[in-house]
Each structure stands twice: as C-alpha cells, then as structure tokens.
C-alpha cells in the first residue's frame, strides 16, 4: 500500500492599506477600542454602498506580480451569501468568477533525501480580493463582536494541490509569507491575524499487487480553517495524515466517496475536530455584486503597480550571496524583511570593511535586538552601524563595546558620540604594560599552567586584562604584549 498526501492551501493576507476595502475607515485597528473603526458602509447599515479602495487594488497587483500571476484587466466582485453574526451584511463581497489575478507559481526548496534539497514548483490558481469579517469573542452565554476588522482588505491566495507533505506545506506558506512581507504588501503578522491558512488535505492510497496497481482510493478532502502559525499548519497536516489513514483502515473500502469536511484546529490539544460537512460551494449563492461595476484596469495602472514591487527576496538573496559573498544563513535572515535588506545596502555605502562582516552584525546582533525590543530597523539612525564598525576595523573600538553601544543607543536612545568617546580604545602603551604586569603578578599559578601547555589559559588572561582596562584596549595588542611578557618570565 502506497500513501500519498495531497495538500492545497488557501492563504488569507490582510493587505497593507490606509483604509478598509470598501470605505474610508482606517484599517490599522490593532489594540484599538472595539468598534471604533466603523461607518455605515463597514457596519452594513441599510442604504450604505461600497466603493473599491484603489490602494488595495494596487497591493493585489503587486502580490500578483511577485507570485508570477497574470493580472486581469477586467475583474469583478461578487456577493458570497451566508449568514453569521460576524458578517454584517449577510454576504461577503469577494471575487468569485473573475478574480483580479490568475495562474501563477512559486518555487520552494524541498527535501531530496541524500542529495540535500531541490527546487519544486507550486502552482497558484488565483489570488482574489475580498473583505475581512468582524471579530467574534465567545463567552459562555454570549458573544461579543468587534467590527474594527470588518471590511479590512484581504487577498486570498489559492494554491493548486501541489504539496505532498507537511514540510512542503510549511515551506510554501513561508515562501508566500516572505515574498508578501518583502514587497511590503502586508506585515503578515500572524499574531495580529494578518495572515491565516486554510489547509485542504487528503490522502491518495494505492494498493498494489506484484508491482501493478490494484485499486486507488482517495480519502474525503478535509478543510482545516484559520490556522494562524506555521507550526499549527505543520501539526494540523501531520495530524490529518495520521487520522485519515487510521479512518481509512477502520472503514476499509466502504464509504470512500465522501463530501468535503470542514474541521477546526485545537492548538492546545494539537488535534483537529469535526465542524461540518461542507455542502457544495455554490450554496453560497454567488452572484455579481450590483453595487460595484466591473473593475477595469488600464495597462498603465497595472504596469505602475507592478514596477513598484522592486526586487524580490530570491533576487536579493542571490545578490547577497553572489555579489557580496555572504553566507546563506546570514543572507536568508537579511531577506526576511525588506527593511533589513535596505538597511544593509544603506550602511554598506558608508562601511569600508567587508560586506559579510556588516551582514553578520545585522543578522547576528541587530535583528535579535529588534525582536527583543519590538523596535523597527527604521528607527535606527542611518550610518551608525557603519561608523562603529569602521572604528572597530581601525582598532579603535572593541566588538564588545560596539554591542553595548548599539544596545544603549537603540534601546535607550543614548547619545552615540558620548558613548564612542567613553569607550574608544586607549592607545597608551605604558598603561597597558602596567596593567599586564599587575595581572601577571596576581595570576602566577595560571601563568605556570599556561607554560605547562594549557593553551586555554591565554584567553582567560586576555579577558582579565580587558576587564581591568574596562574593555578599552585592543585585544590583539594585549595578546601580543602578554605573550612577550610570559615568554620572558
């Protein structure tokens, strides 16, 4: 028996726009007072009418271009009818028959056994615009609704069922995340619900005898809705693979043909649970939205939107690796975010040292500092890192001190010039000699141990001197002088 997993993903991304999809309410609502971003349109009041947000259309085209999708010069909005309290109008305005973008693809890296990894093409069926719903918060005997999210522009990116494992699903999701973030079409902050995954998964089970196929089965497609982390996506896939196989074994060959089933994901239990058997999709009674004429886009408008995406993360990665000789891990971190990449390029103009040293600092230290503090790289004053690293390269500042300075300036907004002054390396040989002599006098036993072959003692001694000098000495001078003095003992 051969079991193959078939996975397709629908990814919802909140597009980065000033206002909502069909009205002028602000779409930046995170942590704001519930129901404070509302107007007759997004509240679905009788008589209110939608107006398409041009900025959302531009963002949709940008994502489309980045995902190799065709941009359709004519698209249309439809009404998707279903009743739920978080859907104020009783229908969602979406694009059903004529989406703004169709047929694209991305490449992901997949495991290739002993040969490492290989590139795999995942086809994308379409990406279409729609509006987000309100947020429901359920309590034991009532539910509260917050309409701030209602009407926020969404792009739904629908893949073909081209993925065959939880790793591939995760890689694909990460790829979309990376691209959409990099072109700044969305922040994709999953904790804020800016990116959500609907997983469609089932199994193809082939029974073979003597090498030839006897029978082929497909388990019913399960849709797991609203997964909001890569981890949840991965675990839900793994769980479904196991659950569906087990179910197949239990039911053997009966009830093979089933309706699509919707299941929810319980993150605490790491389990999916039955929600409903999904009826056919056209029970949503889609029909053309009469309040919005078809959307015609001229070539110039489309071209301008396309051009505005600039470089894509894969292209940026190639530049970092090939042109600047930056290691793959470091380069990958830098292309996680367009602003990191931009920061690298702008510091590089002022930095005289090697690009890879600069990249190491950004990826290895600054990004961590930002993640810790929640600050943005855009808050860091331009040129600072280049100045500090130039000082280090000229043996005027120790890397230890640079870390402290960056931390203080970025987190505490301390004065950079003063910090440099206070920490610049003291090039005073007499002072250094005296300090080393003192350290050697106080560490006679260690010196003996070193002489007897324990090489590690040397860095301990260097550290002692550095500490005594409050970090303001050049480590290579310390080492040189230390060795000379020890050898002469």
């Amino acid at each position: 028996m051969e079991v193959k997993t078939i996975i397709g993903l629908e990814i919802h991304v909140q597009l980065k726009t000033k206002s909502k999809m069909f009205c002028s309410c602000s779409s930046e609502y995170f942590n704001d007072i519930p129901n404070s971003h509302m107007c007759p349109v997004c509240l679905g009041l009788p008589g209110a009418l939608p107006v398409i947000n041009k900025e959302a259309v531009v963002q949709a085209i940008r994502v489309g271009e980045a995902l190799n999708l065709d941009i359709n010069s004519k698209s249309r909005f439809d009404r998707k009818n279903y009743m739920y309290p978080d859907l104020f109008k009783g229908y969602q305005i979406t694009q059903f028959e004529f989406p703004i973008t169709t047929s694209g693809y991305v490449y992901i890296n997949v495991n290739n056994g002993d040969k490492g990894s290989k590139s795999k093409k995942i086809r994308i069926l379409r990406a279409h615009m729609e509006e987000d719903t309100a947020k429901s918060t359920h309590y034991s005997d009532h539910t509260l609704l917050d309409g701030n999210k209602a009407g926020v522009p969404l792009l739904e990116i629908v893949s073909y069922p081209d993925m065959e494992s939880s790793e591939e699903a995760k890689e694909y999701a990460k790829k979309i995340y990376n691209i959409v973030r990099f072109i700044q079409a969305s922040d994709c902050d999953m904790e804020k619900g800016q990116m959500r995954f609907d997983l469609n998964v089932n199994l193809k089970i082939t029974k073979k005898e003597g090498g030839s196929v006897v029978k082929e089965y497909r388990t019913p497609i399960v849709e797991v809705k609203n997964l909001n982390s890569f981890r949840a996506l991965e675990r839900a896939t793994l769980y479904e693979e196991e659950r569906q196989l087990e179910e197949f074994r239990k039911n053997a060959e009966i009830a093979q043909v089933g309706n699509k089933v919707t299941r929810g994901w319980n993150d605490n239990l790491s389990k999916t649970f039955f929600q409903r058997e999904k009826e056919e999709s056209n029970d949503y009674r889609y029909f053309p939205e009469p309040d919005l004429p078809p959307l015609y886009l001229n070539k110039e408008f489309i071209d301008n939107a396309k051009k505005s995406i600039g470089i894509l993360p894969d292209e940026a990665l190639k530049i970092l690796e090939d042109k600047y000789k930056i290691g793959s891990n470091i380069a990958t971190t830098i292309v996680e975010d367009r602003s990191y990449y931009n920061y690298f390029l702008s510091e590089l103009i002022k930095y005289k040292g090697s690009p890879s040293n600069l990249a190491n600092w950004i990826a290895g230290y600054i990004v961590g500092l930002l993640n810790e503090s929640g600050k943005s790289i855009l808050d860091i004053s331009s040129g600072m890192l280049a100045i500090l690293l130039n000082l280090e390269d000229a043996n005027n500042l120790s890397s230890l001190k640079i870390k402290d300075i960056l931390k203080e300036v970025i987190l505490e907004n301390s004065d950079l010039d003063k910090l440099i002054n206070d920490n610049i390396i003291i090039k005073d040989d007499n002072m250094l000699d005296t300090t080393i002599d003192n350290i050697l006098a106080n560490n006679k036993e260690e010196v003996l141990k070193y002489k007897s072959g324990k090489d590690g003692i040397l860095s301990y001694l260097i550290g002692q001197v550095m500490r005594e000098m409050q970090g303001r000495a050049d480590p290579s001078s310390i080492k040189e002088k230390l060795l000379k003095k020890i050898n002469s003992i």
Partner: protein
Amino acid sequence: MIDKLKEQIDNKKISVEDVAKEYISKAKKLNPELNAYISITEDYALSHLSYSPQNKLSGIPGIIKDNINIKGLRTTAGSRILENYISPYSASVVLNLSDFTLVGKGNMDAFAFGSSTENSGYGVTHNPLDKTRVAGGSSGGVAAAIASGSALFGIGTDTGGSVRQPASFCGVVGLKPTYGLCSRYGLIAMGSSFDTPGVITRNVYDSAYVLNEIAKYDKKDSTSMKVAKQDYTKFRDIKDLRVGVLNFSEEGVDSDVIDAFSNSIKTIKSLGCKVKTIDLPHLKYSLAVYYILVPSEISANLARYDGIRFGNHPEKTEDNNFESLSDFYVEARSKFEDEVKRRIIIGTYTLSSGYYDAYFNKALKVRNIIKQEIKNAFLDVDVIISPTTPSVAFKIGKKIENPLSMYLSDIFTVSSNIAGIPAISIPNGYYNKLPTGLQIMGRSFGESTILSLANFIEQKLWK
C-alpha cells in the same frame, strides 16, 4: 408651483416657518384618513428651519419616502423589522435638497415590495381621490401626500414602477431618472441594479425643478455617473420629435386606459411630433426577468436584518432558548411581512445551486436582450410612450391576495428599470374621477427630452 412659493419666500411675503407650519398642519389633519405618512416630523422640521436664497428648495415642503435615510430620524422602510431604527446618516439625495422643509416620511410597502402600499407594516395608504382605493405603491404615501397637497414635492424610489404607478393612481407626475443620474447612497436597497430615487410633484415643471437638485454625481455610489450639469426646467422644442408608440397587447388593460392613451397620441400629433408604432417583442419577458433578478438581489440585501443589530432582538424563553444560531434567525426573521418573506424565498431559490443557470443567469441574459432591443429602438425614435398602468387605482384588498395580478400592475413600468432608462408618468385623463397615466420613456440620460414632451402634453391637456 414650487418656483412661485420660492419667489414668495424670497420676497419675504411668507416666512419659511409659516410655510412649514401650514403644510405640517395639513399633513396632520389628513393623515388619519389617508395614512400617507409613517412619521410627520414636526419637531425635526421646525428645529431645522433654515433659509438661503441660493438654495432652490430652501423652505419648500417635501415628503421623503421612508426607505431613504435621514440622520437622526427613524427610517423604517415600511417594515416592522426597522420599527425602532434611527439612522445615523443621511442619503446623498437628501443632502442634495439643501434647506428643504421635511414634512414627514412617506408610507410604503415594506422594503418597497408591492404596488399598493398594502404591504406596509404601518397600514395601507388611501387614495385621496377615492379613499376606498389604493394610492398605488410602493411610494404610495408620497404620491398621496403630493396629490392631497400636504407637500409640494416628494422623493420616492422606483425599482419597477414604484414612483410612476402611484403617481398615475393619484393623478400627479412621477419621474424615474436614468440609473446612475441620482445617487443611491442612503436608499435602503431593494433590487440594487434597478433602484433609483425618483421625484413626485404636482406638475412636470416641478419635477424638472427638483431633478436639477438631485441629479449629481456621488463618489459614494460606484454606479453613479458623471453627467454634464444641465437645467432640466429649460424645456426644448419638441416639434418633429420622433415618438414611438409601444405596440402592446390590450388584454388585461382597462378600456378607459386605452381611450386615454389614444387621446394622448392625438395630442402628441397636434404638437407636431412624428408618431410611429414600434414593436419591442422581448418586452413581454420584462416582468419575468424582473421577478427573478429583483428577488435575487433582495435575498442578499435583506440578509442583514438578522435580529442582531436590527429589529426586535428575540429574547430567550423557556420554550425557545435558541440552541442554534439558526433558531435565533428563524425567530428574528419571522417578523418580516408576508410579501418580504415571499421575495426572499423566491430570490434564495433562483440563486441556489442547480437553479442559478436556469433562472438568474438566464434572466440576466434576457435583461441584456431587452436592453439592446430598447437601445436599438431609440435609433428610430426619440421617446417611447405607453400607458403607465393597465388600470386605474384599484379597490383596497382587491389584489392583495393574488400576488400575480398585483405584479401585473407593473407591466408597463418595469422595462425602463430593466434597461436603466428614464421614464415619466403624467396624468392623461380621468374616468369616474380616477386618473389614468401616460408614460414617456427616453434614452439613457435623456431626461430633458421626456420632460419637455411631458411638459407640452401637460400644457395642452390641462390648460
């Protein structure tokens, strides 16, 4: 009439306040008999009085159909579902009527579904000319108020004849402008691709006068069109105008209506117009197309009335504790009026999986054929005339139990909504004191032409 009153106000012969009081007191006096108003907004009107000479409707008393939102006022759409709904915003069409005096909100069939105002959640409106008869619908309240003189102009909505048919029944003028000429923003939607605001007045000049104010592009309505500003009260010469007379089946049409129509054709000829008969073979499908597409749009437009934010939020009882959300919806939405339920059910059906192609999609195709047929007809003629309705105002209760015969009263009016073209109804005769109506349809944005012809017919017939 409006311009005369405006002149008196401008010349300080009468104050805006006195005008308001006069018309409001008339409305209050008549309303117990006619039930033209769902609300008479005396306090609102007197506290919002304002006058500026440049505003053409400054101080002019008007009635607004109750499916058009006015900020701070109850807006019921004629339905009990919205009994306590106070709108937080005003429709664009209302904002365009700067400084007018609001006498009240007009009675109507619930959500504008009907042709007699008998489907109102607030009681039937009586025809001022014969109180045992209907005033027509769905803008029956507005037409009755204009006919009985408690307001000088009214704004209604017309989805399939809801302005023209009651105007015809009450012997006044009803104008349905081109779809897209006047903003729909703030009109409680019925059939969104058919709805337009419309004007009801005592004479053609007044309709043109009000149209001047409300014909305005609105960026809040994506189906609104930018059209060059023009003065519709400047009637143009209609000599040699090519008038197409619709060839219609006389079956089911009252002989009085046919007589009046024949007289109108004579009048039109005497005005120097060129008259010819035209056939529009697909027009007979108009009503069928209408009663598929409009309910489909209705079924979505009315989904928001779910009892959570609108209507009476059903309370849990021992018998009904709403174990599921659908229990709650069933309870909340059972308060809809019968005709409303009927149309929601029809529309849900015509959009359903397996029926979409047979009904909605096919109706959409026929709509396009009718549109094209009408467009072609306008290559040969400048306007198309027909009776407005197949009968004069009928007795209250006569058709309410038979929806199909009620639907047939829109047979002449729906086509212009299907094609989105303008149409006007003017009185063209009286039989036993009951008026008949003449409908003139024009090309898209051809309001000026139909108003001009209507004006000259009116002059000839009634002066």
